[in-house]
Every structure is written in structure tokens, then in C-alpha cells.
């Protein structure tokens, strides 16, 4: 069993966490999602990082602006349904020309079993793009490190809003987020 465990490939959240650390991201605001479980555990366990549990996702746009104003790099992690809660609030970092990096685990696509997720899941990308957020979809686990890195660099270096959209194909491939 030990040998089998050792042979298990790294989870995609390992890649994201490594890229977060490399960019000195100190704060992760979240309404959790099943697909984010492993990443959020890593953030919580890291002594240099802080997990901020929100009551609704749009609060994250305020927290990242406050962090930016105070010189700290922060991001928001949420399920795709939370994107709908953020639309007006996404104008806030944009108006300050503050970076807003989002990690979104998708629902409502790639084999979704819950019909209540379909509408928002289908609207995530057009809704984000309508309010000026650059979207970086990830369809395969081996794409996530470079995609997250590119989105994060663009967000922090060019001071824009960027969303990494992690497909259910990725989450499901590792058995997370699916019942």
C-alpha cells in the first residue's frame, strides 16, 4: 500500500500552491468548494498564509483591494456558482486598478449531475468577460501550473482581474467534487 501511495501523482492543488508561494500570495479568501478542499487545507496549514472564510464571495473583492492597498498579495477561491455573486463587486478592484486573482472550481459542465448548477456554470465565462475579467480555463491537470502562473503574473504585474477556471474534468479526474 505504501508503494502504491508513493506512486500516486501529485494533486493539481500541489501545483497551484507551489505557484502561489512562488508569487508571495499571503491571503486566500474563500467560500469553499469540494474541489478546493486540498488547496485550502494547505493554505490553512501554512504559517505564512492566512485563510479568510467569507460569508459571500463578493466580499473577497473588498478584501483583496484592502490587502493591495496595504501591500499584501491576496486572491479569492470559490465554486463557479459564487461567480454570479461577484459581478457588481468585480467593478471595485477594476476601478482602483487593483489586481484581483480568482481561482474558480467549475460546476455545471463536464458531466454535472445536479441540474441546479447548470445555469450559472454555463454563464461563468461570458459573465466574467462581460465585466472585464480575463479567463484562463484549465481542462487538464498538467496545464494548471503554467496556467495559474500566467494568470497570477498577469493579475499582479498588470493589475487586472484574472480568473483561473478549473474544469470538472480536472477535479473529477482526481475524484473530487463529484458525488
Amino acid at each position, binding site marked *: 500500500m505504501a508503494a502504491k501511495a508513493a506512486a500516486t501523482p501529485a494533486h493539481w492543488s500541489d501545483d497551484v500552491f507551489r505557484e502561489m508561494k512562488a508569487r508571495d500570495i499571503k491571503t486566500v479568501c474563500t467560500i469553499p468548494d469540494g474541489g478546493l478542499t486540498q488547496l485550502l487545507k494547505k493554505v490553512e496549514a501554512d504559517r505564512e498564509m492566512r485563510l479568510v*472564510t467569507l460569508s459571500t464571495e463578493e*466580499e473577497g473583492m*473588498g478584501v483583496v*483591494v*484592502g490587502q493591495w*492597498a*496595504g501591500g499584501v498579495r491576496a486572491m479569492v477561491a470559490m465554486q463557479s456558482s459564487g461567480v454570479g455573486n461577484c459581478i457588481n463587486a468585480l467593478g471595485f478592484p477594476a*476601478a482602483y486598478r487593483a489586481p484581483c486573482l480568482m481561482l474558480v472550481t467549475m460546476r455545471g459542465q463536464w458531466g454535472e449531475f445536479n441540474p441546479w448548477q447548470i445555469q450559472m456554470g454555463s454563464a461563468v465565462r461570458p459573465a466574467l468577460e462581460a465585466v472585464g475579467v480575463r479567463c484562463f480555463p484549465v481542462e487538464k491537470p498538467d496545464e494548471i501550473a503554467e496556467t495559474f502562473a500566467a494568470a497570477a503574473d498577469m493579475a499582479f504585474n498588470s493589475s487586472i482581474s484574472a480568473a483561473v477556471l478549473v474544469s470538472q474534468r480536472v477535479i473529477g479526474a482526481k475524484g473530487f467534487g463529484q458525488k
Partner: protein
Amino acid sequence: MSKAPAKSAPTSNKLQRRPFVAELMKHRGSGLVVTGLGSPTWDLFAAGDRPDNLYSWGGMGLAVPTALGLAMAQPGRRVLALTGDGEMMMGIGSLGVVADQAPANLAILVLDNETFSETGRQRGLTGSRVDLCAVARGFGIRETMLVTEASQSSELADLLFKAPGPILAVAKIALSEDPWRLPEKDGAAIGRRFKISLGLEKP
């Protein structure tokens, strides 16, 4: 049987927002102030423009989350969120986030005229049954203060700028006709000036 919503009664609030805020800001010291959109932004600007004022012209509901993010990033500085009752109600859940993070350097002052005064003085939710101090305590913010008299200003200033946070105070302000006092509205300019004042960007 359910009761009808409480009718808006003519407010008995006495505090005059502009002199009240101006008096409080005399005690601000090196404190950073984040405003909610609308009148609190005009009030802070009227009290005296400073580079460490983080004004906002939008993002209703985000004043407290923004001040929280700033307080976490700058634990050595006092941070005040100055906002209105409608803005606070829209972001009311953020009081739970504040309580959970428990920043000792964060205070919130709600200028409560029980009215959406910017949009035509429609009645708000805090005039009859909603008690924001009780709500804040319910969320776990232990230190609250209700202010109804100008004579409480000194005690309020001590609470907002010196006492261990997080703190929420509600000031019952009158409806008033105040001259427009509009600060810079380019968010990038507001943010850049603010960060320069903290030494985070070069002038």
C-alpha cells in the same frame, strides 16, 4: 399573523454628520480611513483631504471587507471603516468575517440616518426594528457603541482609534442638506496616492 413593515417615522436623530465626522477626525492621528460609497466619502473629504483616505465611489457592501483586508495587511496601523447604514446592511455578513479574523486594529463607524439619502431619501431598514449594534454583537463583535449625542464624540473617538478591536459603533445622524464635497474619483489615483503615503509605492 405577520405585521406590516414599520412605517418610516420622521427621524429624531440629532447628530449633524459633517461637524460630527470632522470632530472625530481630529482624534485620528495616523489612522487609515476607508469610506463606503456616497455620503461617508463626501463627509471624510469635507473633514480634510488626506492621502491616507481610501475613498470609494462604488462597490456597495465592500467598505468593511476592504477595511478588513487593509487592517490585516497593516497590523501596526489603526484602520477605520466609515460607512452608512444601507452600505452596512448590504455587506452585513462581512461582520461575521471581521469577528472571525478578529483584527485588533479595526473599527467600524456606521453613520446611520435610517435612510437611503443618496437616492432620494427612501426609508432604510435601521429606523425601526433593525439594531445594528445588536446584530454586530450577534456576529461576535463584542465591543459596540450607540451614539446619539454630540457630547459622546470624545468617548467614541477613543473607542474608534485606541481601544482593542474589532469595534462597531453606530451614530444616529440627522437627515441634512450638505454642500457637495467630492474628492478625486479616479480609483487608480486614489489607490496610488494612498499606497505612496504608506511607503508602498514611489511617488
